[in-house]
């Protein structure tokens, strides 16, 4: 009987090999598995995995605010510590909290830097990030090809996702210079606060608590907003938001820095209402680096 069982297992293995091979070819051709609904996030995670990074001292996470506006070269040259930017477009505070739960055991950072704006507190979290965060660490670190089967994306969908993805050139530390995607909606004013904002504050609170528990220093940085977008009522909402974030972060022994400064960041330094252009990002990064000098030791 054992022989016939082994023969069956061998035949089934061959059948499975016939399934695995097309995906292996796709992986080699850089048609990466569709893990979440953000092709940029998926690409970034695969790049990070290929680098096989170990411990990272300074870990930048967050939305496009962190992704575009922290100058990687400046961070590395100033602090001389291992640094990587794992931020991705569109992440909400709930998503950041979820993903940090996956990043912390993997990268064991000493500092977590989040550059944030009101947009990170205005939408519902994206459930598809669970596909990544809930996957076993072994799979994320050593066998990302398994995501092809974990999430069951069709080959057609994988090819289409790559074709439709907005091309981004990452620097060696996961950051990028801004080139505003014409398809994004940030030329319009984001509604704030929204029904999702209270939950986002709870996520920030929980995230800050989680970092404190793990002896990781949270550095939370408010990014500038284009002044021409702000009327009196909005300004009041923003001030309340800053106070709330500051309260949450400092309560958990984190550092709160606010660079919402219309006199420095004039409208000409913005690519859209919320993102600084390259010149603005350079000024912002320089200010952040100065601000962090006494904090990152």
């Amino acid at each position, binding site marked *: *009987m*054992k022989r*016939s*069982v082994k*023969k*069956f*297992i061998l*035949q*089934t293995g061959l*059948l499975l090999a*016939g*399934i695995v091979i*097309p995906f292996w070819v796709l992986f080699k051709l850089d048609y990466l598995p*569709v893990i979440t609904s953000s092709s940029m996030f998926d690409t970034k995670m695969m790049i990070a995995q290929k680098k096989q990074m170990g411990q990272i001292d300074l870990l930048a996470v967050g939305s496009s605010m962190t992704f575009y506006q922290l100058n990687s070269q400046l961070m590395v040259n100033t602090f001389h510590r291992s640094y990587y930017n794992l931020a991705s477009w569109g992440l909400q505070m709930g998503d950041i909290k979820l993903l940090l739960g996956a990043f912390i055991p993997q990268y064991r950072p000493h500092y977590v830097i989040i550059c944030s704006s009101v947009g990170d507190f205005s939408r519902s979290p994206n459930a598809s990030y669970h596909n990544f965060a809930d996957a076993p660490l072994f799979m994320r670190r050593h066998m990302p090809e*398994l995501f092809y*089967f*974990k999430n*069951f*994306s*069709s*080959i*057609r*969908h994988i090819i289409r996702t790559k074709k439709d993805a907005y091309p981004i050139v990452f620097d060696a530390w996961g950051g990028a210079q801004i080139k505003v995607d014409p398809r994004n909606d940030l030329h319009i004013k984001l509604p704030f606060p929204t029904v999702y904002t209270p939950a986002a504050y709870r996520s920030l609170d929980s995230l800050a608590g989680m970092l404190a528990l793990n002896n990781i220093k949270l550095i939370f940085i408010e990014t500038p907003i284009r002044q021409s977008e702000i009327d009196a009522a909005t300004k009041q909402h923003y001030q309340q938001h800053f106070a709330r974030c500051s309260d949450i972060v400092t309560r958990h022994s984190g550092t709160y820095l606010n660079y919402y400064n219309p006199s420095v960041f004039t409208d000409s330094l913005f690519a859209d209402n919320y993102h600084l252009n390259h010149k603005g990002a350079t000024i912002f990064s320089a200010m952040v680096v100065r601000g962090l000098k006494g904090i990152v030791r």
Partner: protein
Amino acid sequence: MLFTSLTFLAFFTVFFICYWLIFTTVRAQNLFLLISSCIFYGWFSWPFLLLLLGSSAFNYWLGIGIGHTKDEKRRRLLLWIGLFQGIGCLFIFKYYNFFAQSAGATFHFRPDAFLLHVILPLGISFYTFRTLSYILDIYNEKLAPTNNWVSFFTYVSFFPCLISGPIDKPGAFLLQLKNARRFNGEQAADGLHQIIWGLFKKLVVADNCALLTQNVFDHYKTMPAGSLLFGAFLAIIQLYADFSGYSDMAIGLSKMIGLEVTRNFNYPFFAQNIADYWRRWHISLTAWFTEYVFMPLAGRFRNYGKGGLIGAIIIDFAIIGIWHGANFTFLLFGLLNGCYYIPLILRGKLNKKPPTSKGLLPGFRELVNMAGTFLLVMLTVVVFRADSVTQALDYLRRLLSPTILSGFWISEHANIYITLAGIFVLFAFEWVQRDKAHPLQLDRISGAPLRAAIYYSIILFTLLCCASATNEFIYFKF
């Protein structure tokens, strides 16, 4: 741990290797099967595993009690205790809140204080029916109680069929557990092929249909009747491909374990009338209700002639409907199907099987019968799929309007051609292979390379065209 998940693949691979290579005695195989089933169910919810084991233990004890006593009153009492426990559990978890809310709406009081904050244990409707049929069969002296608790617990919690059936009768299943299973390569390969077919149905047909039907049902008020007809068509295909896909996987897995379980679907869309359809759709549930509900009712109403038969069928289908869930839509679904039987009963054709062709193409009459039955069933699926009776009736009212032939549009275009291609492959294979247990039983084809090419084509089609989002199986919520 969905059958379509990587976790299940890992679980089953380890199980399969240990089951066939390490555990070779009957006792070891059954015990290992039971432990694996507990892990499988516990993966979903450990607290509900206790309910499953508690219910199994209680019914095991009742079975022995009913079987070993000669006192009719005591036997009847034990049976009623068993029925009360099984149906009581179902009532509490599945129906109580529905009845409390309905009573609140009828008698104008706020039911909040009376509501129970419980979630429905996965598979409770299925494993409860297994325990019920066990004690009913012992009471009716069709089955002797088993003294082997491992076998009984394995019967109730057998993991391929635990969550969504098929609902096996205890006699045949327990008999298979009496002897050690010997590995049969042909049976295992057949099981594997059936799993491939089940995966194709679920991932390509059902999940792609789901995207489109969701779109139609969400926006049905703004769509022309043609779109609603198309939505209803996709809804029934989705339901069939989803549920029968799951059943194919469950049966295929059982075959790989060396156990034969009840067939659950027999190409229902080729049915010639509604009675024929229900003999082919969810066979294990229909058979259960026929034996334990319809037959006793029909016996009791036999003095009323055809009226009695109609009454028995309508009650039977009303209960089948409500078995699906606590909503008036399911009750209406059952009643509609029951009413469809009336012409057959009145014309004395209930048990007559219309002749069918064996050839490649159906006869004209056969085709008309199939299309008619399909249309009737499709209308009931609108009710089944709707959130409320009001929505179902509104959908049907808009569907049966003069614009029905004006063509259709839906806003989700991306998957429409893939979905239709998947449905075409589904129907073509099922029609050609309608005399087989499943369409990938290709024993008519003598050349092994050609058979392998067909299996691999189905796999490749699944890999290429499965939906971008896989959904939980529809029948998990029942």
